[in-house]
């Protein structure tokens, strides 16, 4: 680009470029009429208009920040309503997880096993209360043959709030009992995942529910120790006391495993130990050598 110098002043020169632009450039000892090639153009910094624009933009930034904060707060509030607050695991054979929010509205439904997927396939849970979803899932389970007379339902409640679990384990059972009373008789178990070894088993339809069917997991003879019964839910109906393992224990039991122990036992593992033993495991010394001897006899 060539420039013709049009005017020279002390600090700058005015030049005309070939496109017809007049420019103020650094006056590198130019003379009027001279044709020059490289010029150093004067850059006039943004003046008041620019700064006002900047100020306006500053306002916009602060407003935008405030709006973003509001949006964040609102979204958190609404999230609080929408995010899963608790989950109910419903196990028949199909196993599904029902996520609910604080208002007991269902916000999520997932199959845990393939049968569970089958059960909820095509089912619309949105904007339905938990009770309704449960009822409808029961209907579907009956229809699809998963739930039958004398069958069993396990409900596992999972929530941060223990209060919620306590209140719902009761109300849910009552609700399902009411609902299923006229259709079918099943057993409903309530479990709490956080204290999973405390199982709440509530028999429904008492005329059919024998203790044996209500607690299939408990392969225990009915040996309750009422004195230490820290978890004796429904103990009257002959339930087990998980948390203790006193198989064949005697009433004055110390809570240790005492298979074949003698009454004056010291609470150690005493397989094959002699009464006057020191309370250590003597397996190696006696039993071990005995075993080898037997082997030799075989030979």
């Amino acid at each position, binding site marked *: 680009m060539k420039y013709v110098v049009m005017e020279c002043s002390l600090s*700058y020169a005015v030049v*005309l470029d*070939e496109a*017809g632009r007049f420019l103020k450039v650094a006056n*590198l000892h130019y*003379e009027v009429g001279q044709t020059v090639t490289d010029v150093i153009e*004067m850059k006039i910094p*943004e003046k008041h208009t620019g700064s006002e624009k900047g100020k306006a933009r500053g306002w916009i930034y602060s407003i935008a920040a405030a709006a973003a904060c509001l949006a964040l707060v609102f979204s958190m509030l609404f999230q609080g309503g929408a995010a899963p607050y608790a989950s109910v695991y419903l196990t028949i054979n199909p196993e599904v997880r029902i996520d609910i929010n604080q208002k007991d509205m269902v916000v999520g439904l997932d199959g845990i096993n393939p049968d569970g997927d089958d059960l909820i396939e095509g089912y619309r849970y949105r904007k339905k209360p938990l009770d309704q979803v449960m009822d409808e899932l029961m209907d579907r389970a009956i229809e699809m043959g998963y739930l039958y007379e004398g069958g069993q339902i396990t409900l596992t409640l999972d929530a941060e709030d223990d209060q919620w679990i306590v209140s719902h384990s009761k109300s849910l059972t009552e609700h399902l009992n009411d609902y299923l009373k006229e259709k079918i008789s099943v057993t409903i178990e309530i479990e709490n995942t956080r204290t999973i070894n405390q199982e709440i088993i509530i028999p429904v339809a008492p005329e059919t529910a024998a203790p044996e069917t209500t607690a299939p997991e408990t392969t225990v003879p009915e040996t309750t120790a009422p004195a230490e019964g820290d978890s004796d839910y429904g103990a009257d109906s002959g339930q087990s006391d998980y948390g203790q393992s006193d198989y064949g224990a005697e009433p004055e039991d110390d809570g240790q495993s005492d298979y074949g122990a003698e009454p004056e036992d010291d609470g150690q593992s005493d397989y094959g130990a002699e009464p006057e033993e020191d309370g250590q495991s003597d397996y190696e010394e006696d039993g071990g050598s005995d075993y080898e001897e037997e082997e030799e006899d075989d030979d």
Partner: protein
Amino acid sequence: MQKEHQIIKEVYAAKKDAKKADELIRAYLPYIRSETSKCISRLCTEQDDEFSIGMIAFHEAILGYEKEKGAFLPYASLLIRSRLIDYQRKEARHRGHLSLDAEQGEDQHTLMDELTDGNDCYEEAMTREATRQEIEELAAVMKKFGVSFSDVADHSPKQQRTLEACQAAIRYAAENSRLLDELLQTKKLPMAQLVQGSGVERKTLERHRKYILAMLLIQTNGYEMIRGHLRHVLKQKGGMRA
């Protein structure tokens, strides 16, 4: 403190008035020189390009200064330094290239001497002189309209699109010499006809009124050299006709 107030007042006066800006720069020439010397770490003479750049940077500082943002002289010094750094970076690109004006060997011959003979030199001087005369004439005519080249430079279109819009109006006027005659006689821009003829928005033309005026004056008779320089603009005109 009083001194600082004084310079702020002067700077704000110089923002509006080119003459005052000139005076202010003249008063601060030693300051500019010392700042420039500091920056290029050698003594700066009036002949150095760096000194010119320092001056224009000082001028930029006058135009860009805002008293809310701090003292003037530190700002000016900052601008001078950054412009000089820009310039040195630009120059660094040419390092390692031979200068046409550099002396070759003992006989004080320069490359330029070898490339161009005396005749060309003479011709060039003639061209320059002719152009200078044209420009002076033009400046005199423009003075009658109350416009200087500095004003024109301040109102010259900066965006490419605006420039093209203005060029359309100028081309229209160049094709209709009636408009140019009218301009010379009435000393008024025939704005309405320009708007009508070129289809450019009136607002755009009004904003660059001084620029349009200068360009139209160039299109009147007698400015062959300048018009030759602007032949690209005219060439486009031919292209549009075809």
